[in-house]
């Protein structure tokens, strides 16, 4: 690429300049629809929500500038702090579990497994099924006299905990359901990355006497580290925004055990219509995600290998 650019005579570049300008105009014309969409539906709301975060902005009635008051209100609100902690707990539990399950299954579904294409589809199914349907099915699994409790009682005569209704269990139940629902996507990513590892590398390691574990940790993992980085970053971002699973399965309860940041924002925005407070909450979440993602990007230099 760079050689080509240097070798190109200056005259050629000069002659092509007018055409390039025309190209630019045409490009702007073609880009306009998506630019308009981006501005109206993304940039404008983002800027507006930032403005709203500094106002007391009720649904109907007077809007007053309050400076940082929304933010101080939030940080002194025990419910907000609880929601923040719950979200962090969810992320800390969900992210590693998701990665372990998806990498594990991707490795297991190696080229020698029969019907791996069908298996991939099966494992990917929960990702494409609507969350509402998933939540209803999982509630039936978790509830008293449900699948777990019913079969445990039939087999041993003891009752299982009321997973979604008992503090201490509810968050784990939500995490388990989320892992089931979400691992398929990452598994596909890892599966493709594993398939791209040159066979001769693994064969050479085998000849050198490396066992399966050594092959996994010394060859497979470093080779799929870019995919691992991509998957962990994306999963981290979505797990900070967790909403649907607790909203549908526990409603944030029992008590405040599964109330997450997004649920808090939703309640402030669409239940008591305090848009300023909701926007401030959303921006805190955004800064949090931004910070953690930035740390990941800085950290990746240490463990992600891009050379083959």
């Amino acid at each position, binding site marked *: 690429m760079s050689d080509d650019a240097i070798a190109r005579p200056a005259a050629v570049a000069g002659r092509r300049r007018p055409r390039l300008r025309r190209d630019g105009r045409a*490009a702007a014309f073609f880009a306009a629809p998506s630019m308009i969409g981006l*501005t109206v539906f993304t940039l404008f709301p983002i800027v507006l929500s930032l403005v709203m975060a500094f106002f007391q902005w009720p649904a109907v009635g007077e809007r007053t500038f309050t400076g940082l008051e929304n933010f101080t209100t939030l940080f002194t609100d025990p419910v907000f702090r609880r929601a923040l902690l719950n979200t962090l707990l969810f992320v800390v539990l969900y992210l590693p579990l998701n990665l372990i399950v998806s990498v594990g299954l991707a490795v297991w579904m190696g080229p020698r497994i029969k019907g791996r294409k069908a298996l991939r589809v099966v494992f990917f199914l929960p990702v494409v099924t609507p969350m509402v349907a998933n939540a209803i099915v999982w509630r039936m699994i978790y509830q008293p006299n449900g699948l777990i409790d019913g079969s445990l009682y039939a087999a041993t005569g003891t009752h299982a905990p*009321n997973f979604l209704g*008992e503090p201490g269990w509810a968050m784990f139940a939500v995490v388990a359901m989320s892992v089931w629902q979400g691992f398929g996507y990452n598994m596909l990513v890892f599966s493709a990355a594993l398939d791209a590892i040159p066979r001769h590398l693994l064969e050479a390691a085998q000849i050198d006497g490396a066992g399966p574990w050594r092959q996994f940790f010394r060859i497979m993992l470093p080779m799929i580290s870019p995919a691992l980085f991509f998957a962990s970053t994306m999963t981290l971002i979505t797990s900070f925004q967790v909403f649907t699973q607790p909203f549908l399965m526990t409603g944030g*309860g029992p008590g405040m055990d599964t109330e997450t940041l997004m649920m808090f924002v939703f309640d402030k925005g669409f239940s*008591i219509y305090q848009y300023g407070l909701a926007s401030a909450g959303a921006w805190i979440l955004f800064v949090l995600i931004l910070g953690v993602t930035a740390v990941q990007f800085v950290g990746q230099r240490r463990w992600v290998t891009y050379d083959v």
Partner: protein
Amino acid sequence: MGRQMYSGRRSLALASALVIAGGLTTGCGGDGQDSAGGNKASNGAVTLTWGMWASGTEDRNAWQKVADQVTQKYPNIKITLETSPFKDYFTKLGTRLAGGSAPCVVSMQSLRTGGYVSGMRPLDDLIKKNGLDTADFDTSIMAGLASGGKQYALPYDVGSLIITYNKDMFKAAGVPEPKVGWSVADFEAAAKKLTTGGKYGFVGYPSALGMFSMILAKTGNAEPMDESGKLTLTTEQMKAGFQWYADLTAKQGVSPKIPGVDNNFTETQFLNGNAAMSVNGPWSVLELKAKAKFGVGLATIPAGPNGTKSYTAGSGFGISQSCPYPDEAFKAVSTMTSAEVLGQLGAVGRAYPARKSVQNKWYENAFEGSKPVLDAANASAKPFRTTKNWDPVEKLLAQYGIQAFNGQTTAADALDQVQQQSPA
């Protein structure tokens, strides 16, 4: 290469500047005559939007008929019906009131009136101007749709909370069916006897209307709100009443454990034949009867120390503040709550009419023995009043109530939390 990128970037910047400017102007515009709530054609015909909740096509068709009746009476008024499920309806309504794009005709439930009055138009002057006689409406539901001395909606239905029971389960357990005025002791004895073989005598859930009706009857006087509109969840009587209701699940075990937040819990447990009794409003009774594969009976809320007690709730139609044609909207609202329309709604069991003169129509389709029960319930009921921000209270009650029902916390702790966290 570099130059090309530069020129591209410049046009891109130009394009985005233009687009941003354009976006801002369109964003701030929208003040045209075509407001979302309604519009007027050149021939003077007015089209009004009506926001209503509906659970399915059948529901929607029934309300469409009501809309058509407005046009029959006033050919120059056309109604565009917009429906959403009950819970989403209020989420949507709040957002649309905020954006000044609410429907002209707004459906409102008595429990939620307080939270939306700032976006709604008081109807008192229109009632006076049009000489509408409101004496036929049930007074408790008129009060439920008023706030701060102003009437914000005219009611179409009303209902006092009652007990629905599974006749087949009562027969199988050899328990006599409840009579009007039966007591809390009778109720508990029946629930205990009916709880057998994995089935339960009753199904409770911490949802405000049903639960507080039972607590009011049991304690005789514990109410969730005082005269001034403040939450009073932490009074001793309320704590005792709540504990009793939670213990039906937690200690007495006559009601099934609750598997997390599920607003349809009592209905599914009752319809599945898993619980013999549940608290309900007359608005859902005929639907329950149609869905149930067993005989459904009605009973009053069991009487406590001060006799039979209950709450009423209901819904009606009002006009949004942003509606450009309030006169036409009022004509629509008064037609939709006329004796003729409410009589029809009552006859098909869609609503227990808020007009006393046509309440008899409801019984034509109802079942035997329902009239004395509803008469007794209505005579003993008072409107269920709510705070301005009721939805969060309802949500907190479910979150903390479930813990109390499942025996993991005391009623006192749960109520303290709800009271503390509820917005003023």
